[in-house]
């Protein structure tokens, strides 16, 4: 299980004192609720040290970053994997900074990018959204400063709603399916691989194409885009439909056109069905 960054809570002021004991502000203690992640921590260190973000003293920032991680370990706090990934990135950048710049043999060769450039871009980009999040929080929010009527008025409650438009999100649908599967005893299941529904999809498309028609030329089901996958899926869909006895394939002579013929008309079925399947 991965740990959420928010789990790294630091509240004891002595932690900060130790962490920044060597900085010029060692007497100044700050309260840190939590760092949202490694980028958040880095931004903090940069501000703390009053350094130019475009010219980060990578050695000292890396040292402070690692000290923080060490401190978390000492305090037996969970360290999110993401913090460790950043630690190794920092160490990597630091070692690249130590290498002498490669003298370009060719004048036209583009200058090697500062090893810190990517990190600086990410930090600034992160700061933008951190900023935006703060301003979002300043919005007058529904349920906080503003309230609306979120209930059905008595005037409208009793009106018939036969043609009501469903309002539902995909997420709700999947959650319903998930919870349903959770209820079924596990031993009745076995795993399958991919969750592709392309064949079902094709079956529906073919049935749509056939709707209201007496027959259709087989080749019409193989119109572009003719990818390998599309052909296979269409073919499997037709096999499935044949197996279900929902279509028949007919060919007048051995080199003639193949016809696909629906064997059931939907209208016949649904009436019959609805008659004997009344709601209990």
């Amino acid at each position, binding site marked *: 299980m991965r740990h959420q960054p928010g789990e790294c809570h630091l509240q004891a002021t002595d932690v900060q004192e130790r962490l920044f004991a060597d900085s010029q502000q060692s007497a100044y203690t700050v309260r840190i609720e939590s760092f949202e992640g490694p980028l958040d921590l880095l931004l903090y260190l940069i501000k703390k040290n009053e350094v130019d973000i475009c010219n980060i003293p990578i050695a000292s920032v890396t040292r402070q970053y690692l000290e923080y991680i060490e401190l978390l370990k000492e305090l037996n706090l969970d360290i999110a994997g993401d913090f460790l990934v950043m630690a190794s990135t920092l160490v990597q950048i630091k070692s690249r900074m130590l290498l002498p710049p490669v003298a370009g043999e060719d004048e036209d060769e583009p200058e090697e990018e500062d090893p810190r450039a990517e990190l600086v871009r990410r930090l600034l980009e992160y700061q933008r959204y951190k900023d935006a999040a703060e301003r979002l929080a300043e919005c007058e929010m529904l349920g906080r400063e503003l309230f609306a009527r979120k209930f059905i008025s*008595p005037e409208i409650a009793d009106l018939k709603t036969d043609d009501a438009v*469903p309002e539902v999100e*995909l997420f709700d649908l*999947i959650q319903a399916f*998930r919870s349903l*599967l959770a209820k079924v005893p596990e031993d009745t299941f076995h*795993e399958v691989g991919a969750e592709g529904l392309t064949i079902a999809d094709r079956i529906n498309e073919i049935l749509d194409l056939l709707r209201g028609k007496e027959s259709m030329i087989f080749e019409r089901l193989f119109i572009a885009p003719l990818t390998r996958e599309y052909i296979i899926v269409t073919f499997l869909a037709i096999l499935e439909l044949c197996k*279900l006895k929902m279509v028949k394939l007919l060919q007048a002579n051995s080199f003639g056109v193949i016809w696909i013929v629906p064997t059931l008309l*939907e209208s016949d*079925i649904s009436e019959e069905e609805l008659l004997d399947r009344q709601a209990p």
Partner: protein
Amino acid sequence: MTGKPLESVVESLLFISEVPLTIDRLCAILEEHERRDVQGAVERLREVYAREGRGIYLAEVAGGYQFRSRPENADYIRRLARGKTFRFSRSALETLAMIAYRQPITRTEVEYLRGVDSGGVLKTLLEKKMIRILGKKDIPGKPLIYGTTREFLEVFNLPDLASLPTLRDIHELAEQYADVEQAELPLEGPADEIGTE
């Protein structure tokens, strides 16, 4: 606080409350105000909303006060109701999910998974045009098989069925949640082959 702001607060409260608010209740909320001031504010609001050409009035119902729309506008309210949205019931959503992910599927298969009779909910879904009958399955009893409709795709804003998120997609969002492995129906039938790409 002078009269005006009190009137504003009372207006907010009456507007937001799901049930008619009695003077007692208003006074309990506005504890720093005199009962007669609260009563006065309600009276003034009643007058303001009683003016001609307003679409709302402050009705005295069930011993309390509540904003209501004017009965003269009822015809239009009915038109609004026509485009009303509804939320699926839990059982409807479960059944729809079952059909979406396991189509073509029979009623027996749906009921096996849900563990309850699903005739009524299937009928509702047929009426709402979320599912349709694809045909009959070629097994004894020739049960009907169900699948989703084009309207289903429209409601969920999906270009096609292949765009349905997989269970795995959602599963990954919630690793800390109880595991539900990607599973297939234990029943024989087309769903098995169709479930794989």
